[in-house]
């Protein structure tokens, strides 16, 4: 079969909503796009544990601590589902992780912002997980089988992440004026980075058209961003928090909220590694891998020893 014929058949399957599975023929660029996108997604789950992990020992009470611990543990699991999905595309897991550590692979820029107060943890659950869910629900129907299955599991587990964050903010916002101010401050700092999570605008997005054609993505960055804004405004009103955008206004004709242009300079600066925490996050991941090496070595040695005893 010629390359062109294979590509035609591949696109035909996609158009008929037939999922692509690991051993199926796929164009090299489809494979590369998936490796890039899924590994970036996996790294985001893992790096995302850092700002929250930092608050586990400082949670205000045992309930919040148990919840945060469960959430962070979920993120680790989500990273693993996604690393497994990347592996089905023929890349080694070690290589995928090393690509993060050398800076070759990216992760969501949102995790390069610090979590300065307890209100940040609630806000991360509400806005950051909320934005991630908006993206992930759409990805449950992505064309690559293992990615879609990982997303279904992740979405099922993530809905508690957003709700616990919102619940925590409800408490803060109905507390003392200082607590309410702390929540507003967190909102002010996380609103724009949360909107940036959907990536560059459609006009600037290099991979968008082909990804839509291959049904890796079902909606464009701007469409998802708009859905997120539309869903979030009323939630902010219930909290009594002000969204830090003077141009945020319901547009009757569009049936959507209008909002200000994102500060794209800041977005690209953070993507390029110059955000407030880029260096700290990568250093923490590299340290975790190096410091954990002896545990992996010991487990390998123990497994070998036991296998030898069995065969003796």
């Amino acid at each position, binding site marked *: 079969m010629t390359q062109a014929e294979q590509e035609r058949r591949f696109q035909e399957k996609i158009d008929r909503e037939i999922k692509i*599975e690991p*051993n*199926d023929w796929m164009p090299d660029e489809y494979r590369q796009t998936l490796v890039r996108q899924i590994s970036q997604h996996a790294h985001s789950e893992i790096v995302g544990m850092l700002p929250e992990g930092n608050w586990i020992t400082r949670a205000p009470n045992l309930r919040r601590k148990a919840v945060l611990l*469960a959430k962070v*543990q*979920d993120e680790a*699991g989500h990273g*693993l*589902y996604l690393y*497994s999905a990347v*592996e089905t595309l023929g890349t*080694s*897991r*070690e290589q995928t992780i090393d690509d993060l550590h050398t800076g070759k692979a990216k992760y969501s820029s949102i995790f390069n912002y610090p979590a300065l107060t307890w209100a940040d943890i609630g806000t991360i659950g509400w806005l950051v997980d909320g934005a991630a869910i908006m993206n992930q629900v759409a990805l449950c129907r992505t064309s690559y089988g293992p990615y879609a*299955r*990982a997303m279904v*599991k992740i979405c099922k*587990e993530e809905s508690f992440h957003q709700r616990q964050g919102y619940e925590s903010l409800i408490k803060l916002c109905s507390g003392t004026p200082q607590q309410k101010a702390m929540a507003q401050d967190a909102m002010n700092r996380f609103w724009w980075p949360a909107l940036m999570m959907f990536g560059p605008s459609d006009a600037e997005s290099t991979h968008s058209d082909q990804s839509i054609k291959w049904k890796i993505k079902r909606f464009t960055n701007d469409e998802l961003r708009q859905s997120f804004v539309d869903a979030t405004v009323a939630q902010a009103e219930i909290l009594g928090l002000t969204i830090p955008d003077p141009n945020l206004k319901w547009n009757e004709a569009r049936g959507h909220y209008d909002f200000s242009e994102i500060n794209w300079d800041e977005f690209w600066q953070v993507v390029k590694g110059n955000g407030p925490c880029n260096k700290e996050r990568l250093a923490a991941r590299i340290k975790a891998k190096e410091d954990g*090496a002896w545990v*992996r*070595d010991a*487990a*390998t040695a*123990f*497994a070998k020893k*036991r*296998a030898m005893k069995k065969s003796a």
Partner: protein
Amino acid sequence: MSTNEWPLWEVFIRSKQGLNHKHVGSLRAPDATLALENARDVYTRRSEGISIWVVESAQIHATDIDEAASFFEPSDTKIYRHPTFYEVPDGVKHM
């Protein structure tokens, strides 16, 4: 040392008594004991299972995707294996 030395394991979970073990995903682990413990932590954090099987991926033999059409052809051509192939007069009950 690299975790690439750790074999890949496929994980199967029985969600409740009376149902089959079903494939849920994979993970890497140095041996079966740790594979089972990791599978518990990764795939059953919300009471999804009462029993787990782990099988080394290398031990799984699969049909060849390129041969699928001819491999499964014998079944596709035998529509008389389905009850809807047979005509029964109206009014015949319990069949």
